[in-house]
Structures are given as C-alpha cells and as structure tokens.
C-alpha cells in the first residue's frame, strides 16, 4: 500500500510534502500515487480518516495534466477539474463533520485539512468560503485538546470574516460559538461569555429568539455560568433552554402524529446528539439542585419539562423503551407538582409507546 520515495530523488523544483504535517515525505500511497506522507503513522491516520474514500478521486485532481492543444479542450478540462474539486470538498467536509459529531475529533482532523485544502484551491487563500472548513478544524482541534492549533484556525477565520463585509449571520454565529468553545476550554470564562453572547445575538437575528439554535447558545452560556458558580443565572438559562426545546419537540411530535408513521427524518444526527446531551445535563443539574433545595415546585416543573422532552425525543427516533422510562418519570413529576396541562400529552405518548412496544414483543415471540 505504501511505497518509499526518497526526497533527494524528486525531480528538481518539486517538493513532496506530507499530507498532514507538511514535512518532506518519505512514503507514497501506492494506490493513487499522488498522496505523500512523512511516516506510517500519518499515512494510517489519513487512510482512516478520509483517504480511503477519496483515494481514487484525488488522482485526476492532483495528477499533472497533459498539454491540450485546443482552447475549447482546455476550458472543458478546467471546468471538469473544478467540478471534481467541489465534489471532493463536499465529501471531505461532510466526512469531517460527521466524525466531529460522533466525537472522533482526532480522526476528523485529516479530513478537515483536506477540505480546507480543496477550498483553498477552489476559492483562493482568503475567501469567505474557507471559513466553514476553518471552523470545523478548530472544533476538531478543541475537541482533541490541541488548543494552539484551534486558536490559529479561529484567528484565520476571524480575520477572513472581518475582511468580508456583509458576511452571512450563520457563519458569524458559528464562528463565535467556536471561539466560545475555545475560551471555555482555555478556562477564560469572561471571553467565552463574550463570544457566546455574540453567538446568541447572531443566532437570534438569523433564526429568531426562541429557536433551538439560540437555545444552544444559551445552554453553553449556562455551562460557563455554572462553572463560575453563578447557579441562579445558570438555572434561569436552563429553564429557558428547556422550555424552548420542549416547545420545539412538542411541535415535532404533533407533526409526527398528524402525518402518521412515515419514516420522516425529524432531526439530523447532530441535533439528536445535541439535544440528548443538553437535556441530560440539565436533568442532572436539576437533580442536584433538587437535592440541595428539596421540594420546590418550580424545580419540579422544570424536571417535568425535561423528562417530557426526553420522552418526546426518544419517541421521535422510535426508541420505545426510553420513551416509557422518561414518560413514566414525567408522569410522576406532573402528579407531584399538580400541573395538569401536560398530563394528557404525556399520557398519549406513553400509550403510543406501549402499543409499539407490545407490537415489537409479539414480533419477537413469533420469530
């Protein structure tokens, strides 16, 4: 799979650099012959992350093109190359994104680098189209703990954004969220709050006030506040997030019930993981809070909302065990705090889950 090359035997003026670290390369991918590595570790990492999928796609992009005598021919070829690059960019970007979402930060890095490289080839070294790639790389680097690199990428992104007036709000929102992540990881909570504040602001401008995008920013702020021991602020933010998500999920469940059991996708993977994480963290915080200040009707209401949201979330991805678990919990809370408005919807949720559950059980027995 790998063939050795000697840097000294490279043709004059041509440098073969490692895909990952840009050092002189000693190895070559024997399949495509256009990817070079400094050692086996880097080749393995690249293979695992992205190279396996793009190995063949890289050949036409990287291989030197033969001379074509006709202008039309050359134009055609250029367009083709452009298209291939775009395809490559999209593929590597989605791959990196998926890995980041799954928490495989180190694995995401080579893919992210490839996507950045493609973007640079396509759009030039300081185009605003590079920002998503920078952000992704920064996120992966924050996740894998190499904060200096993350900072570098983010600075680059920030600079690009600053140079581009009228940059889209979504990009600004993501940039500030990543900066916030970075500063949280660094322990610089004040700056983290500043960036999360900007994040929430842009998200509200773009998506509206009580949307899940904004709620994400609120949640991150709440985490910072709870790290700063400002629990009252954190709790107030948590309740805001919980009610936003609860409203959102209720709407989705209603939609689901109206349309019926078509296997429509209500979430992408990212949101699913995100909401699960958030709700669980909040529930935990709530439980701790309940231990220190027992029997506050307010906190009961909050737990009720959270459990109900979790039940709905699992319902939407057809995990009926979990629906039953959280639905029953929610039922308990709703009985305790005598809030009757939600009882009905919880009840119907449990009933539907039980129906599905029983159907599954009989199915298994039949087999």
């Amino acid at each position, binding site marked *: 799979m790998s063939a050795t090359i000697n840097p000294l035997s490279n043709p004059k003026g041509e440098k073969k650099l490692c895909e990952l670290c*840009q050092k002189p390369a000693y190895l070559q991918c024997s399949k495509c012959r256009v990817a070079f590595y400094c050692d086996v570790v880097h080749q393995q990492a690249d293979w695992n992350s992205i190279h396996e999928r793009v190995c063949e796609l890289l050949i036409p992009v990287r291989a030197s093109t033969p001379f074509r005598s006709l202008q039309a021919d050359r134009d055609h070829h250029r367009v083709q190359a452009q298209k291939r690059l775009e395809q490559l960019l999209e593929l590597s970007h989605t791959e990196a994104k998926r890995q980041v979402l799954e928490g495989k930060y180190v694995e995401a890095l080579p893919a992210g680098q490839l996507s*950045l490289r493609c973007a640079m080839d396509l759009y030039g070294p300081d185009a605003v189209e590079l920002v998503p790639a*920078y952000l992704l790389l920064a996120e992966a680097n924050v996740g894998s703990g190499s904060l200096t690199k993350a900072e570098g990428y983010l600075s680059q992104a920030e600079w690009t954004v600053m140079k581009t007036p009228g940059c889209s709000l979504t990009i600004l929102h993501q940039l500030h969220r990543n900066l916030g992540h970075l500063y949280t990881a660094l322990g*610089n909570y004040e*700056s983290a*709050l500043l960036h999360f504040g900007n994040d929430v602001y842009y998200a509200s401008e773009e998506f509206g*006030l009580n949307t899940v995008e904004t709620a994400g920013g609120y949640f991150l*702020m709440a985490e910072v506040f709870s790290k700063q021991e400002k629990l009252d*602020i954190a709790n*107030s933010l948590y309740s805001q997030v919980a009610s936003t998500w609860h409203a959102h999920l209720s709407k989705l469940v209603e939609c689901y019930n109206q349309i019926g059991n078509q296997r429509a996708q209500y979430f992408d993977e990212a949101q699913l993981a995100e909401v699960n994480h958030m709700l669980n963290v909040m529930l935990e915080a709530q439980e701790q809070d309940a231990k220190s200040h027992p029997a506050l009707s307010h906190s009961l209401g909050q737990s009720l909302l959270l459990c109900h949201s979790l039940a709905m979330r699992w319902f939407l991805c057809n995990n009926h065990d979990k629906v039953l678990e959280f639905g029953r919990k929610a039922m308990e809370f709703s009985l305790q705090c005598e809030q009757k408005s939600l009882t009905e919807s919880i009840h119907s949720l449990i009933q539907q889950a039980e129906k599905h559950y029983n159907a599954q059980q009989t199915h298994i027995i039949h087999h």
Partner: protein
Amino acid sequence: MASAVLPRQKTRFLPAIDQRAAPNNNKLLHKSRLKEKSELPDPDFPENEKSQTTTITEDDIARFQKPVHQNLCVSMLREGFHRSFEEFFSLLQRWKASRLVAGEDSALWQQRPLEEQPHKLETLKELLTRAESAERSNQYVEVYENYLALAKFFSEPDDRWLQHHFYKLSLLSARKVKMDSGKREAEANAHIGQLYLEQGDLELAQEHYEMFHHLAVGRSWQDESGCPLLSRACEGLWRVYTLQAQRHLQNKDYSPAIQILTKAYDMAKQAGDKKIEGEAAYRVALAYQSLGDHRTAKQFLNTFVEISTALEDTASVGRAYKAIAQSLESEGKLNETIQYLQKYAEISEEINQDQGLQDACMCLGSIQSSRGEYVSACEYFIRAYAIACDLGSVPLLQKAQVSLGITRAHSMLRTYSSLVANNEPQSLLTLIRWKETREEFHKPPCACVTHTYHTHTHKTSLSQW
C-alpha cells in the same frame, strides 16, 4: 497545509549569537491568548489595569466595529441577563416589523429608528437589567418600579407603544407584589386605563379603570401629589362612561346611554368633585330630554343649577336655564319657558357671553313668533342679528336673517289675507299699492325697509367672500 495557517517555526542557519535574547524574542513572537491566560493574575498587578494601560480589549474593538444595540445585547448576555436581552431584542424586532408593515409612505417610516438613539437604548438596558436582577431575588416592588420608570422614560409621542408595553409589564409585576394590598396594582391599572382612554379604546379603558376602582374602594391611598386614588379612579371612570354614552347618543340609543350616564353620575358623586358632578347631572338631563322624559330631566337640571350656583359658575347656570327652558317648551309651558329664557339671556349678558345671548334671543324670538307675538319676536331677532354681526359668524347671521324674514312675513300675512278676502275696491287698491312699493300696509316704517335692504346688500357681500 497547516503552514498556511500557523506561523512556521523559524530555523536559523547559524546558532543564535545572543543566547539570552533569542528565547526571549521567540516568546514575544509567540505571544498568544494562551500565553496571556497562563500568566496567572497576580494580586500586585491586576489584570484589568494591565489591559487598560497596555492593550486594547475586545470590548474596545467591538465598540468601534459593531452597532450600539448589538454591543448592548451582548453585554446583557454576558452578565447573564438573558430575559432582558430577549425583551430588548424583541422590542427592536417589533419596531422593525411594524415599520415594514406600515410601508415607506407612512409616518413610522420617517421616525428615527431606536437603534440610532443610543441614550434610549442604554436606559432601556440599564432598567431592564435592574428589573431582572430584582426579579431573580423576588423583589417585585423593585421590578415594578423599574418598569414604571421605563414607561415614564418613554413619554415622547413616537414611543407610545413602548410606554404601553412597559405599563403592561408593570401591571404584571405589580400583581406579584404581595405586601401592599394591591396599591401598586391599582396604580398600574390607572396608568393603563389612562393610556387606553387616550387611544380611544373605551372598553379596555373601562376594564382597567374598573379594576382600579375596585382595588381602591375603601382604602385611603394617595398618590404623590396627595390626591386620593379613589377619587382619581372615580374621575377616570366618569370620563370613560361619559365617552361611552356619547357614542350611544350618536347612534340614538338613548336608554343604554342613560344607564351609562347614570353610572357616570354616581362615579362623579363618589369622586367628590362638585364640578364634575354638576356636569354629569347636566349630561343625564340632556339624555332624558332626548328620550322625552322632561320631568326627570328637570330634576337633574335643578341639581345642576344648585351645584353651579354653589360654585358660582354662572355660565353653567345659564346652560342649565336654557336646558330647562327647552324641557318646558316641549311640555308646552310657554310662559315659564320665556321666563327661563329671559334669565338665560340676562346671565349671558352679565358675563358678556355674546354667543349665549344670541342663542337666547333666537330662542325667545322663535317662541314669541310661535305664539303670534310678531312684534316682540322681530325685536328679538333683530337683536340676535346684531349680535351675530358683531360675532362675525355667518351661519348664525344667516339663521337670524331667515327667521326675521319669516316672522315679518307672518306678521303681514293676516292683513294681506283679509284684504284679499274683503274683495272691495279699496282693499284691492291697497294691495296694488303694496305690490308696487313693497312697503308695509298700515304705517310703513322706513327703518324696516332700509333694514331689509341693508341685509340684502350684506348677504351679497357675504356671498362674494
């Protein structure tokens, strides 16, 4: 790849000559956010002081780069005031939305946007955050006061909607105040009621004023100027009821109007303000008059007269006399009517109210002419005409002219018809002579003729205007 992004480590060909300077220099080049953080803030040299003297903070950059409202939003969020942020942001959005709906031709489009008025935004932020922190510690009195301050701050006509919004919020927070037995709630209701009254939304104004009244009954609360709240509530309700009744009267729904006006009268009595009470009584009386119940109307009018005399409000007494006269006239008691009208005229003359005097003269004239007393009727009309000329009011003047003409005609009609009926040559001659000269039959008063002529010229000159 990363080289495009990260500073590449410089490798020197020769070893550094100055061994001490080299790493130092390197460190400086590498000065990053990581570095800043890793230097723990030591107590002798606090971090913020350092940033003040040496570097520009991110806040300073933001102040130049970003609009004021964004900076305010972000600073609110940073301090954890997310509800204030929400309020602030949604208000700005609301303004924008309503502006878009109103379109480019509207007055709203010409207004200065809130974003361009930093002092307003700053006050808004300040008070909102104060309210939120008070709310977090359950001090609703403070919350209420902050919202009230906001409402009072936005007193310009352009900011009416903001004022309205914050009065509503202050009502909500006042409801949560437990310790003051509802005084603040009452006040908040009063504010909102007044606002609705100004906007002309009577039903909602009534609702809030009734709540205010309900809360204030039996309490000895006073506002800042020492005016008891209860009487303010009554006054407000009186105003609302009166306006509502006026609407009914315009639609000629007299009985509901009377019901409402009676309520208004009760409120006016409770308010303890005699002037209002008199006014209310007068309105009830007028409503009864339009319904045709003159007895009750007169009762109320007498109350009005009493109150007005006690207050030495002569103009009101005059109005009362006129109204009484109208009632009497409808009942057919002409002698008494004339008495009251004369009183009305006297009073109007006393206080130099020409309008009233003219009115009285017209009424007297028409009554006299309806009784067949043409001579005195003419006198009254002439007087009315003279006053109208002084006032320079064309409609009054024309009315007086027409009435005078009709009365003159009536006064001649009897002689004329008897002459026609007589069928004697003598009378025929008289008729012919009259036709030729158009002068009066018996004793031709020159003054009258010149007068008619005069009015004629007057009329033409008026129509030329």
